[in-house]
């Protein structure tokens, strides 16, 4: 009776492929894109420079940590850092973040357009020019590519082949993230891969669970069929 089982298995394989075949193809195509594209490239490592600036050895800020703390008593954390080539303090408190010059004590934040562009250009490693600077303040105008990052943010666009966008925080002056065409395609592929078409983040969604279950049965039925296919033909005349 094995040939009848093979017959049934072939029918199931055929019909399950009709239900899940297109999604399986999408998994293969999106998976292929994600493994073929170098991850560092997708992350945009080639777009940035000056990401590990240090503070000059022996530097003593004119404004001390105690001074900053006196001016911002509600702070949770105060960070002395190198901000586009000069020493600055970043101050984080429940009310928000601030950027303060470590030499003059002047507050730089919130960053204006010129400062935001300066940050972007300081970290930009390619040859494109700034083509647009937009302050994103409310959720309605926030593109999905910033994911869960908090607003407000400056979006600085460059006129290069990858349509690079840098996102700069007007509060602490840091480069929050960078995006380019291949990242955007990767993100789209990821969305297709995990089948969360809204947030592109939830790998536990039921659609994915059901589809993966069907995909698994499709491949197991396929393996089963292989076993029949490669069994030696017997009793042929």
């Amino acid at each position, binding site marked *: 009776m094995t040939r009848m089982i093979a017959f049934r298995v072939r029918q199931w394989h055929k019909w399950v492929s009709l239900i899940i*075949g297109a999604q*399986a193809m999408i998994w293969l195509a999106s998976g292929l894109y994600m493994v073929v594209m170098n991850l560092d490239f997708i992350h945009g490592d080639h777009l940035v420079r000056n990401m590990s600036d240090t503070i000059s050895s022996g530097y003593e800020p004119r404004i001390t*940590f105690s001074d900053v703390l006196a001016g911002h008593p509600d702070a949770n954390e*105060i960070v002395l850092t190198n901000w586009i080539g000069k020493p600055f303090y970043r101050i984080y408190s429940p009310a928000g973040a601030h950027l303060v010059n470590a030499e003059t004590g002047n507050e730089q934040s919130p960053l204006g357009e010129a400062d935001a562009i300066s940050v972007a250009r300081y970290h930009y490693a390619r040859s494109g020019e700034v083509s647009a600077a937009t302050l994103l303040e409310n959720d309605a105008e926030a593109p999905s590519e910033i994911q869960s990052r908090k607003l407000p943010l400056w979006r600085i666009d460059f006129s290069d082949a990858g349509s690079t966008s840098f996102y700069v925080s007007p509060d602490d002056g840091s480069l929050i993230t960078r995006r380019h065409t291949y990242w955007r395609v990767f993100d789209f592929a990821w969305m297709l891969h995990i089948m969360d078409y809204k947030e592109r983040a939830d790998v536990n969604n039921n659609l994915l*669970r059901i589809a993966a279950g069907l995909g698994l049965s499709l491949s197991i039925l396929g393996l089963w069929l292989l076993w029949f296919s490669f069994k030696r033909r017997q009793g042929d005349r």
Partner: protein
Amino acid sequence: MMGIVRQAHKWIGLVLGFQLALWMLSGLGMAILPHDKVSGEHRKAEHAETASLESTRDQVRFLPEVDDRAVRQIRLRTFNGRPVYEIVATDGNSLLDAETGRPIVIDEALAIEIARSDYSGPGRISKAIYVATPTLAIRNHAAPAWRINFNDPERTSIYVSAATGQVLERRNHYWRTFDTLWMLHIMDYQNRSNFNNPLVVISALVVFWLGLSGIVLWWDSFRRHDFNLVAKWRNRKKRLTLSLTDSEGGAVRAFDAKPQQSLYAAMEEQGYPLPSSCGGGGTCGLCRVRISPETPITPADRRQIPESELDSGYRLACQHRVDTALSVILPHGLLDAKTFTGTIVSSEFIAPDMYELRIALPEPLAFRAGSYVQVEIPPFRSHLDQLDLPDTVRRQWQASGTAKAFGTDTPLHRTYSLANSPGELGSDILLNIRLALAKPDTSGVPVGIGSAYLSTLRQGDTVRLRGPFGDFHVYDDGAEIVFIGGGAGIAPIRSMIHDQLVSRSRTSKVSFWYGARTQEDIVYKEEFEHIVDNCPNFSWHVALSHLNETDAWTGKRGWIHEIVRDQYLASHPDIAQCRFYVCGPPPMLEAVLMLLNSLGVSEERIAFDDFGN
């Protein structure tokens, strides 16, 4: 074209189907494992926001120094109730007390305290381990760390940085399972992090074609009526009449079949399993039946069945649906075949590589001359040294390079034509079996299993047979008959000649053109000569193809198809009125069929038995 796509689908499936199943399995596993448990968030204590520095303001007395370690940042925050500076340097991070300026050492007790305050589950701390170099669990972190184990059911481990006291990771069995699935998914079995590794890239590239070929196969696999769900629903209780007819017009059976299932499935359901080795894929061609010639021809039919047979209604049963009342013509014997246990009466070599097996059946077999039987070869093991063969055969076996040991682990079936005519030997039957040795240039291949097994049988041994089968029969009219045959193809021809001339005393002209290699290969010589003496309408002609110039042989030399053409058919006055019956090894059969075709003999005047083995 579809054949290539189907082959590609099958072979890629063989190479990487298992990996595809692993991708699906690991993907499903990762989709099922809840993410908050995998990340350990569910055991994380609900801390207030990082404590404000305000209460410790007066303690911030020490001013940190930017030393020459390439310091990137100095962060002032609270840690364990005290203000601290975290020095973020290129070569690693460190903590200083903001009041005294003394380095803070994260020792075991402190790490345990940090882990305990981070943890909210029911477990207790069972162990603290110092991890000097990063393990897989903290592969994204650089510094040494403390691993604090909890004895909860999911075996939580909290990793505390030995440099900064920060909680690096919260790991548990959910994560460990997830991480194994992730490893299988991205095929990086060492570091579990690089999904650009060549193995996964190549696999994805190849399996991509598995998917593409699968989608192309949809067009070949689905028919429009597969999607006619309304009709299916409406017809769910309907039954159609399927009538089965033997190819000889007898033994009609009729039964009701469910519509819209394949003919193959309907037949199987009614207890008439057709032969098949592909399981309904339309790729083995064994389930052919004859139905109405108007039935549309599918691509699979076209691949498996020759044009002339398509025209007369042969189709693959697995490729056609029962959608109207159908009349199916089965190969002769399929409905009436019986299974017997026969007893060997004698086994005798009648040519250097062919022996005659005489088998007694429990009752006479009703068959038509030209039929064949199926013989069961049970699992067995044997060796040349155990065989009782004539010395010439043994030498030939050794000279051909055929492997000496042979056998099978699973039962096999082989078919052999009956060499006797109906009623000739009472309830005994006669088979001519050619011992299939290796060809000269294929040294080491095994002997033909069926022929070797049967050669081991001796008088009194039993063998299981099923039959009779076959459509190779002499047409019942008064036409002239030309038999052309050779090798083991002599069997059905002997049966037919004996039946027509001895049993039925046929009076029309009958000639037999017999091709053999050498004089030793000519079998049943005396019998044919005896028939010639008694039947003036019969003649037989032997041509030998493998003689040396010096061999003494006064008869015809050369290939039988050339001899019959030059010496008979080319000058035949009315070749269109002859009927041709052909049986022999595949190359001979092919040559004869080409010859008859070139002489303009129509296909319905030719019957042949193809037993290419």
